[in-house]
């Protein structure tokens, strides 16, 4: 993608965050359905490009309850995943963060970490949030690594919360507060 046609919204070192491009809906569908990628996200229902298109169309309200970005990898010149805020609550000033690196061969490179860090900064400095939360399933080592490296702390364990691969497993809830984040970034 050419620099001047690319809709960079937030710039990072290796990546940029872009608004969702509806033309990429087939790539999005591939990631959302991919068995390995969806393993820990608990997408148990198949998702078609039409479903995704519809989801985008519903995104009309202001202030936004959910915000989605594509993660664009500068060197590879392609989008490699999503990062999102869900259930943004403007009275409680809190939101739920979620990251997905859809291109499996890029796992283990801390791209998710970089995306999450950019998102957290955006949330605290632009959306005026006070608390950002995230969750991960206990066996999901990759997510737990990202979550810890961005400075989130374990807040809750929901025991046997999720039905996964034939058994019930724990869901871990993490959070970070603006005050803590400001301290970390001094």
């Amino acid at each position, binding site marked *: 993608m050419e620099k001047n046609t690319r809709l960079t919204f937030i710039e990072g070192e290796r990546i940029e965050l872009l608004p969702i491009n509806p033309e990429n809906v087939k790539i999005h569908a591939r990631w959302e359905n991919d068995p390995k990628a969806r393993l820990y996200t608990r997408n148990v229902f198949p998702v078609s490009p039409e479903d995704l298109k519809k989801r985008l169309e519903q995104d009309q309200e202001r202030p936004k*309850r959910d915000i989605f970005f594509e993660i664009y990898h500068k060197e590879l010149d392609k989008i490699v995943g999503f990062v999102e805020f869900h259930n943004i609550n403007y009275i409680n000033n809190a939101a739920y963060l979620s990251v997905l690196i859809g291109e499996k061969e890029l796992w283990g490179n801390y791209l998710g970490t970089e995306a999450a860090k950019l998102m957290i900064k955006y949330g605290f400095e632009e959306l005026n949030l006070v608390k950002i939360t995230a969750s991960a399933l206990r066996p999901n080592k990759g997510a737990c690594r990202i979550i810890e490296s961005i400075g989130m702390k374990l807040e809750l364990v929901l025991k046997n919360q999720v039905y996964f691969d034939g058994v019930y497993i724990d869901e871990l809830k993490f959070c970070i507060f603006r005050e803590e984040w400001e301290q970390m970034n001094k």
Partner: protein
Amino acid sequence: MTEEKKDKEDKEEEDDDVFPFIKGDNIDLVAGNSKWANLSCKWRNDPKVRHYARNIWPQTLEEVRKRFEPLPDKQMRDSIKFTIYHKQSKRPIGRIGFSRIDWVNRNANIFAIIGEPEYWGKGIAGEASKLMINYGFTELNLHKILSGVFTPNKRSLRAAEKLGFEKEGVLKEEMYVDGQYHDVHRFALFKRDWKKKDE
């Protein structure tokens, strides 16, 4: 049915439809009710009231009724309105609310209209405003409440000062009223200053 009995039943009926949201001493802030559309219409057209409320368009009953319709299914509203209900007289006497609510910047404009002029000068707007401001800071988590008052509206200027609003600035010749341009005085109140008052 005698006139008296009918009146009493009307008043009791009134109570059934009154849903206080925030309770005060002389007044409650209640949810709007389309039953009161005719009163609201009267206030919006009444020359005395509309002079200060700045309604320059005539309002039909149909137009006013539409305002009582359910809001579109949105998560967050950009305005919140209450009817000011006088407890002793058991009647709605005005309207108060926040408009231009900005949820990310956490500020909103407060407005209040006492539609029945016999209730002017009795501290009603002040009481209603206190309830509204408290709601804005402690329930909506607002950071700043704004208000704009044009110069001839001396009562509102005084009320704003009594409530602790500070003058932020003057928008010169911002309003055209009765053939003349008038300044609008911008007032602001911050959550940090409001809490101090309560203590």
